[in-house]
């Protein structure tokens, strides 16, 4: 079962900076284990960040995103006390949603 | 097993207490107490376990290792330097066919590879010499270490002579023969590299066509 994300959202004026760390293997499907068997691909494919009911970032990822992914960006319109919600879904259709209050 | 050692340690610690209180002010200088060395050695034997090719006998020091441990961090007395260098020089074997120079391309691969002798390594694969971990060689490789001197243009600077090659051979075979307590492994003496591999590394250093000499 996936671990919680670590999200920070800080507002400066009209701009909110979001930084998130996700707990995920991001296995490429190219590596082999010690027995020489290919380790199947297992990676986050979609990430959606919402502020209220507005999508502020939507991403599609391949397995070339580093293990335990990090993402940082800024959007306008957020205010301290608002919530930012982040959801990821991986190729096993496992998904995780976490939220944070803008500071 | 731990208990005995701890108890022995505590006892010795208590006995040594008066002395160490005085010495404590210089905690940054290394303790030369042979009793501590003996206890440290016993503690290590109880604290490691064999794994794969790495057996516990690797903790048994030869005379060179023992002396270099004992004098670590201090100036080696000239007599110890002589002893170590003489004994190690006597171990150097040159190839029976006299051929010192092999293939620099293969030498470059050996210089890049750090595989071999770790318990995590496959013992059936050839070991590398990992030269780049400590030395600059071919200038194209930016990722080189500085524990040893740069060997860039090793042959070009020293001349492509038999003398240079014999020195390179012996230095790779047993670095302690020239530099007592050198940080460099004794690749021939300990059988880390085969004769052919040493030839190839000598080629990397002393072949005029090698990227090291460009």
């Amino acid at each position, binding site marked *: 079962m996936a*671990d919680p994300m*670590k999200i920070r959202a800080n507002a400066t004026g009209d701009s909110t900076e979001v*930084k*998130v*760390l996700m707990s995920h*293997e991001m296995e490429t499907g190219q590596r082999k284990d010690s027995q020489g068997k290919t380790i199947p691909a297992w990676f986050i494919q979609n990430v959606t960040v919402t502020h209220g009911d507005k999508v502020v970032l939507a991403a599609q990822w391949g397995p070339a995103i580093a*293990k*335990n992914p*990090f993402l*940082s960006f800024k959007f306008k319109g957020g205010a301290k006390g608002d919530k930012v919600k982040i959801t990821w879904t991986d190729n096993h259709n496992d998904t995780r949603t976490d939220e944070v209050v803008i500071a | 097993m*731990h208990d005995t050692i701890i108890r022995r*340690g*505590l006892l*010795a*610690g*208590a006995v040594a*207490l008066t002395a*160490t209180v005085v010495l404590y002010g210089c905690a*940054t200088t290394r*303790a030369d*107490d042979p009793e*501590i060395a003996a*206890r*440290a*050695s016993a*503690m*290590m034997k*109880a*604290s*490691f*376990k*064999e794994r794969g090719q*790495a057996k*516990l006998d690797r*903790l048994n*020091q030869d005379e060179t*290792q023992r002396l*270099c*441990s004992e004098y*670590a961090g201090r100036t080696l007395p000239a007599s110890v*330097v002589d002893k170590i260098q003489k004994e190690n020089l006597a171990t150097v074997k040159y190839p029976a066919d006299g051929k010192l120079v092999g293939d620099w391309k293969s030498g470059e691969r050996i210089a890049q590879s750090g595989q071999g*002798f*770790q318990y995590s390594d496959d013992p059936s694969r050839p070991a590398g010499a990992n030269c780049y971990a400590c030395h600059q060689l071919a*200038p194209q490789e*930016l*990722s*080189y*270490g*500085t*524990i040893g*001197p*740069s060997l*860039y*243009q090793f042959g070009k*600077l020293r001349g492509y002579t038999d003398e240079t090659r014999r020195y390179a051979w012996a230095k790779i075979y047993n670095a302690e023969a020239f*530099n007592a*307590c050198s*940080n460099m492994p*004794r690749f021939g003496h300990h*059988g880390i590299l085969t004769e052919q591999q040493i030839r190839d590394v000598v080629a990397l250093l002393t072949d005029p066509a090698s990227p090291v000499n460009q």
Partner: protein
Amino acid sequence: MQPVKRRALAATCAIVAALLAGAAGISGVALAQSTADEIQKYRDALQDGNPAELWEARGEELWKTPRGPKKVSFASCDLGLGAGVVKGAYAHLPRYFADAQRVMDLETRLVWCMVNQQGMTQAEATKNAFGNGSERRSDIEALVAYVTSQSRGITMNVALDEPHVRDMYALGEKMFFFRGGPHDFACATCHGEDGKRIRLQDLPNLTKTEGAQKAYTTWPAYRVSQGELRTFQWRLNDCFRQQRFPELVFGSDASIALTAYLAGRANGAKYDGPAIKR
């Protein structure tokens, strides 16, 4: 070692190399410097988000959760500052614990609490001392991440005047200079001189206060090469693997002695982990 001769030789090589490089229109020294600068940029860019935080969060959860056959949390675990006290505890470790009659580092103490308070067997408690991905996650690594994070900014203060700790320190120091194995390596081979690097990685000189402080206060660390948070026990274990030694047993006396030596040498510096490293 013959410092004078070696240094002279190295200096000659450097000068000759620089002259030749200069003649060819490129400066080897400048090239090395720009490489070092770029590597520094790489390291700086990683500081912004350290996945160690993911381990810290899981460790905090584990710390507070009743565990083992006795369903006991770590609230009763004394890391040296009182039962359940985490804040600042790591800055005082290793230390002597009278209840165990042993000098212990953080990892050993956590295992002691799992065994003696939570009712696990030694084997259960140390089963996944070093984790490997999501298949084999290490509770110890997570707990260590949490506990050490609670000493961030606190000055290292290992009690070197305590006789048991002092004894371990002296033994650890001996170990540090112990050369052995097929490659003749000791800890000091790579960590005994200033300004050295292996490949492009700077090697702290652990025999100097400054080097020991910088190194010790930045472990544990998230290792980007492995995608794992690694503890100081792991650091020592893996150094000995690369030294071509047999395997250092987790929580063994030798591991604690060496930790006592290095932690003690870091005294006076502010603890700054868990960090992020190559």
